[in-house]
């Protein structure tokens, strides 16, 4: 056998895993594995001509054609994206987040996100105020709190905003206000890492915000799932699932990855493997409404729709889902358990109608829930 030593060929601070395949010259897949973007993965194959390929969460496909001449040879493979992130610190947003409404890249005509404040796009620098809100019991409260580096930040020439949110009460949301509009994005709090936000312009001139920076594999998994790329999610999911199980068994306070793993099992995996931990997720981490949504669907699947309805009602009280996947799951859950909710004295239609207002204003391709609005109580449908 011979070996490919495969690495990601662009600068990024993210260490997310991406599925990699080695295809033989007669088009048969001979190897598959996971490449950490900050590391190296070895693929042992027979000598021959091969295509090494990887699909990033942003939808782009990396490819490199390579030859292993002799037995026991080792060849280094760099998978270089056709378009590279404007800076290393923006790599997580550039490579992990889908931006279907990105403008045409000026140099190549391909679509690529334009980051506010990126050195490559100084013409797109404009002042942006950052504000933080808390959402609880369907009420929104502006929070006077220090967001690093300051609650109101001019992002010109910075691009990425690091948010050290571990001390914040939750659930909470970031508002980005600029002369071209205002949008909100959920801040799924994890005590183990700070969050990052990057602001981009859509091709219609509206503002979009990407949030990431949680556990890297979970970050990538979330974006594969949101894009409907179940094959890639399936490749990456078990690693996140194992971690999530540990998190909930050991009561380690990093529920964000567990929530994403819960969505993975709900959408792609085997819900039976959730055991009881979806209910733990819902019961222990009240600041994540998504836990109750996952528990609600888990209950329905195991034949307890009344319990499911109760969890959906809990999810509604806790506020908007922090992940876009949860918006549709909650709407569907309210519909499927509608009669049971009425029996509990809850008007699901009224709640669902309000929830739909946010769905209409949301970016359905974003992993983290984000929506356009000047006032969070009045989401504005996207143009």
């Amino acid at each position, binding site marked *: 056998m011979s070996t490919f030593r495969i690495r990601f060929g662009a600068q990024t601070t993210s260490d997310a895993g991406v599925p990699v395949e080695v*295809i033989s*010259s*007669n*088009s*048969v*897949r001979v190897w598959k594995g996971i490449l950490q973007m900050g590391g190296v993965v070895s693929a042992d194959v027979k000598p021959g*001509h091969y*295509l090494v*390929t990887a699909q990033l969460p942003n939808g*782009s*496909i990396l*490819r490199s*054609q390579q030859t292993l001449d002799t037995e026991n040879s080792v060849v280094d493979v760099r998978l270089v994206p*056709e378009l590279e992130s404007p800076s290393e610190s923006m790599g997580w947003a550039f490579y992990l987040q889908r931006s*279907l409404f990105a403008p*045409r*890249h*000026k*140099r*190549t*005509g*391909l679509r690529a996100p334009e980051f506010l404040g990126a050195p490559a796009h100084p013409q797109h620098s404009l002042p942006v105020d950052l504000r933080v809100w808390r959402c609880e019991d369907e009420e929104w409260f502006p929070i006077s709190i220090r967001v690093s580096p300051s609650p109101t930040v001019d992002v010109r020439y910075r691009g990425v905003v690091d948010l050290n949110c571990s001390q914040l009460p939750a659930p909470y949301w970031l508002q980005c206000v600029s002369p071209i509009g205002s949008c909100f994005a959920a801040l799924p709090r994890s005590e183990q890492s700070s969050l990052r936000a990057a602001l981009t312009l859509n091709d219609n001139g509206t503002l979009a915000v990407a949030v990431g920076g949680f556990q890297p594999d979970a970050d990538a998994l979330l974006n594969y*799932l*949101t*894009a*409907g*790329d*179940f*094959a890639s999610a*399936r490749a990456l999911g078990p690693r996140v699932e194992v971690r999530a199980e540990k998190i909930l068994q050991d009561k380690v306070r990093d529920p964000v990855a567990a929530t994403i793993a819960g969505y993975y099992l*709900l*959408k*792609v*995996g*085997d*819900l*039976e493997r959730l055991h009881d931990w979806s209910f733990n997720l819902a019961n222990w981490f009240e600041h994540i409404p998504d836990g109750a949504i996952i528990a609600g669907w888990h209950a*329905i*699947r*195991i*034949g*307890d*729709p009344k319990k499911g309805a109760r969890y959906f009602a809990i999810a509604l009280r806790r506020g908007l889902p922090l992940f876009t*996947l949860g918006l*549709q799951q909650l*709407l*569907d859950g*309210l*519909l*499927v358990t*509608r009669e049971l909710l009425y029996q509990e004295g809850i008007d699901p*239609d009224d709640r*669902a*109608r309000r929830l*739909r207002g946010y*769905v*209409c204003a949301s970016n*359905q*391709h974003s992993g983290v829930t984000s929506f356009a609005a000047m006032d969070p109580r009045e989401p504005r*449908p996207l143009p």
Partner: protein
Amino acid sequence: MTYLDRKSAGLGPRTHAIVIGVNHYPHLIDGEGELSPATMGLEQLTSPVLSAVTLSEWMEKSLDNPDAPLDTIELLLSPSPAVPSSGKHANVDRATMANIKAAFGRWYNRCDSSADNVALFYFCGHGIEPEGLILLPEDFGADKLALWDSAIDMTRTYYGMAECKARTQCYFIDACREQPIESLVPQGVVARPLKTRISTAPVAGRKAPFMKSAPLTQKSFAIPGQVSYFTRALVDCLDGLGAAHFDSEWWHVTTDSLMPSINRCMERVKLDNGTTPQCSPAGGEQNGVSDLHRFRGTAPVLARIACDPSAATQEADLLLHPRDGESRTRPHRAADPWETVIPSGNWRVEARFPSGGCPWSTKMLPEQLVYPPFFGPVVRLHQRNSDRVPGGYA
């Protein structure tokens, strides 16, 4: 009446399809019947019947799944009186609520006969989504007193289908998902699911992608009188663009590979206003992967060729040279990257420039293995003066 029945259901797992296309709505705008009290601005359609027939014919002629060969198709069509169906489609049942319920019942019972069956559900016509996804049969609005009795609650139907034994189920919904103001009635819109959940027993996970032609709150698109964009993409992807892998004899289209491929196809569509229609990015549950179709030979692959700098894309003659066979040339120069479909295999990409007055030199990329789902090389060029490569090749 069942449109296609190969009567092989007892011989092992089979694929069973229900395909519905509705152009004609007598009780909506411009219909010949009494107008529904809630038309929601919905008019007659011209694409769904053709779209449904195109998918049905593809399945009949081409669908090849050795794990579950095609056995039956329930086809329901509601063409407009001005353009009735002809030939073998002339006598298929119309897509009224009663006919759809009857056909759905037959389809359900067949699918429910084995866990290894494959169930395919396709609808093209009017849809709305005030709360859940609602599909409108031909006779929507006929009963003014119970308006929503003639409307299909597709969201609850999908979840009700969890009780069907067939563990592979695919749902293709080619319909708008807007929320008309008239549907915001105080008690909500209570449409009828075709299958309700009746048991409290646990249900096993299923491979059941729920593919919708539009994201929530948005429209679905078609050129009038032609197959819709979504159905065109669906048929093309089933027919090969959705190939997931090759086993040295067959290419396989799977439940996992279909939706990302449809999305890639849809991203190529340009509407009159310059925008691109979007599919719903994700839907349903997919507990495992199933093959849906296989084929031999080469797989079609979406290709996009661009130059760097982009100004060179406009100036270049772009060519694709297969190892064997005839080269392909971009039909006309344009500023946008060249988007085409080529067979999998070994190809070279060439950007050719005129010899005088043009700042770039002709460039040929090394031969590359083209493999599904996508091939997107960028030809990186340098100004001719800085190249200094004899023979015009860099």
